[in-house]
């Protein structure tokens, strides 16, 4: 059992920087992430953006150890994540929510979120089978904390409902609750606002800021909603075709010609990208299927199935 076994809300945590340096991930011949480097500073909100198929989720997979990196190094503080068995990474304080719902649909919300406590709890078949009193006491403490986290995410009323029957947005929240249940120092969210309407997106933005402000943790998130990204991120890293094309504060990234080109498909020299809505994964007015020869052959760049397209906050 690690130190964070109490059910109490932990105060400031020992938050360390995440350094991604020269990381390359290959799938056969495809280079999904190509010598990418960036650093998530402790306590910062860091956005990872890019058109569909740019390699953002692959980056997340590399950090959380579920896909091997071909070269480069990923460190959290001074721990080399690439040399850590993937299931040990959670215990180092990395919590992650997924782009596609990855909950157990038949298990209750409580059970799903409680899974996040796996690395913080102990006991095997015999201990739990024999209902060892110390395990039951610990389980009650952890259950309280889970209820608290679910409350924070606004899903407490579903605690005993199977996760699979909840609306999409609530399932996303349960997933985030589960990532928080790990008691992370680095919280990774893959498209947390996907499928949410404008007001829900605003709530999500406030929630991410609350998590950072109250717990002092770093947040690394992938998001297509430029309003959300530019609104809350301290720093933005932009990927395109697996390469890093920008890494700076939002106001600079917003104006970087490479970024505009990546989203528009061509460099049209416009220095004023509107950052309000997303259509086809790009900036407004640049539907993926605009017949532009530069965009059309890109995989997954258009026709992306989104639960709903919406106006984003400004």
């Amino acid at each position, binding site marked *: 059992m690690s130190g964070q076994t109490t059910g109490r809300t932990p105060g400031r945590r020992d938050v360390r920087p995440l350094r991604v340096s020269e990381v390359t991930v290959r799938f056969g011949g495809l280079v999904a992430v190509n010598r990418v480097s960036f650093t998530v500073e402790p306590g910062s909100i860091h956005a990872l953006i890019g058109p569909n198929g740019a390699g953002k989720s692959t980056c997340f997979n590399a950090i959380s150890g579920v896909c091997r990196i071909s070269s480069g190094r990923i460190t959290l503080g001074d721990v080399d994540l690439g040399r850590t068995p993937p299931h040990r990474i959670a215990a180092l304080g990395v919590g992650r929510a997924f782009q596609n719902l990855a*909950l157990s649909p038949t298990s209750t919300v409580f*059970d799903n979120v409680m899974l996040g406590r796996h690395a913080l709890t102990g006991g095997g078949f015999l201990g739990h089978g024999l209902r060892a009193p110390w395990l039951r006491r610990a389980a009650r403490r952890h259950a309280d904390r889970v209820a608290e986290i679910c409350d924070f995410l606004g899903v407490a009323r579903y605690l005993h409902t199977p996760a699979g029957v909840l609306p999409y947005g609530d399932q996303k929240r349960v997933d985030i609750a589960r990532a928080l249940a790990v008691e992370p120092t680095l919280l990774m969210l893959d498209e947390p606002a996907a499928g949410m309407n404008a007001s829900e997106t605003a709530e999500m933005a406030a929630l991410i800021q609350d998590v950072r402000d109250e717990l002092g943790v770093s947040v690394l998130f992938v998001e297509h909603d430029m309003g959300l990204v530019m609104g809350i991120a301290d720093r933005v890293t932009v990927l395109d075709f697996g390469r890093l094309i920008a890494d700076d504060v939002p106001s600079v990234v917003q104006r970087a010609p490479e970024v505009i080109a990546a989203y528009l498909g061509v460099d049209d020299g416009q220095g004023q990208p509107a950052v309000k809505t997303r259509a086809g994964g790009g900036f407004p007015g640049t539907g993926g299927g605009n017949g532009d020869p530069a965009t059309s052959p890109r995989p997954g760049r258009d026709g992306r199935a989104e639960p709903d397209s919406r106006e984003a906050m400004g």
Partner: protein
Amino acid sequence: MSDSNRAAGDMVPGDGRWWRIGRVAGAALLIVVLLALPLYLPGEWLKVGTWMMTGAVGALGLTLLTGQAGQLSLAHGFFLLVGAVSYAVLSGPAGDPTYIGFGLPPVVGLLGAVLISGLAGAAFAPVSGRLRGIYLGVASLALVFLGFWLGRALPAVAGSTSSGRLPQPFSIFGLSVDVSRQLSSLSVFGVPLGRDERTWYLYLLLTAIAYLLAQGAVSGRPGRAWRAVRDNETAATVLGVSVVRVKAGVFAISSAYAGLAGVMTAWWTGIMKPDESEVAGSYGVTVSIAFLAMIVVGGLGSLPGAVLGAALVFGLPVALPLLTQSASADIGSGTAFSPIVITNFAYGALIVLIILFEPSGMAGLGRRLLGPARART
């Protein structure tokens, strides 16, 4: 297992107060009935009951593996054999010229048999950790054939096919199998406990232990890890679950359950001997499939479902002859419709019906019927 199988047994803490009271009352009633039954049932019906419990122990193990952790196994028959043989060898008399035995106390033999079966399951980890679904099912089937071959090749261990070896009698707290050697006389409410009654209580004790252990694990951390591995291995890993270890572990646990069921089988049949053929017998492919049938009928992952499934699948073939005997003696004789054939048809048909109409088996049916009661406060 496919995602459409709504696995039962994912704990839903009861909401209503009446639901909770009802559950406790139901459990108490069940315990009383199970304890009182031997006072009323004749011996041959008690034997039906102990056979059902044998099936229940095995089915509990398999529903943990297949229903909770999503790993298909057809090797259950093999691990039954490992358990039965281990018990026979560990507790067998030491100086026997024909059969190898260590002369250990039967209790040690029983625990050792469960442990050895579990270790045998753990030894299968390199395969069970890598394969899944039907591939694991087929790979595990190989173990059944291996067991069949080994059993015939090593008669000094597994007993000869012709005569077999006797499993040692067993007794704990006055509960026992084989009372031919008159143990201390026990009586309940003036009814002297005979051989079948004592066996009933022993089997009941073992089944209850197996059930309660499984229940504690399913509702706790191990169960959550199993379901996480079943539903999404990537997510499980990211949340700190070692998928390889969990898979190996649940396979070992399931095998240990099968091992216990194997010992219970050897006691029940009163003889330890290898099967006559790969498909039929006590430890063969048919038995493996029968266990799968139990957990599908009961609802994958559901512990009460596994017990009910076992009662049906193991109970029918031994109960039908008793029923037909008392009804009319000539039914079944000389016809193709032996009780075994009838049961095979019955549970074959039942599985088809369940897959068509109620994929969560009897557990799902139960939830549907009790659902309104549970929701009320």
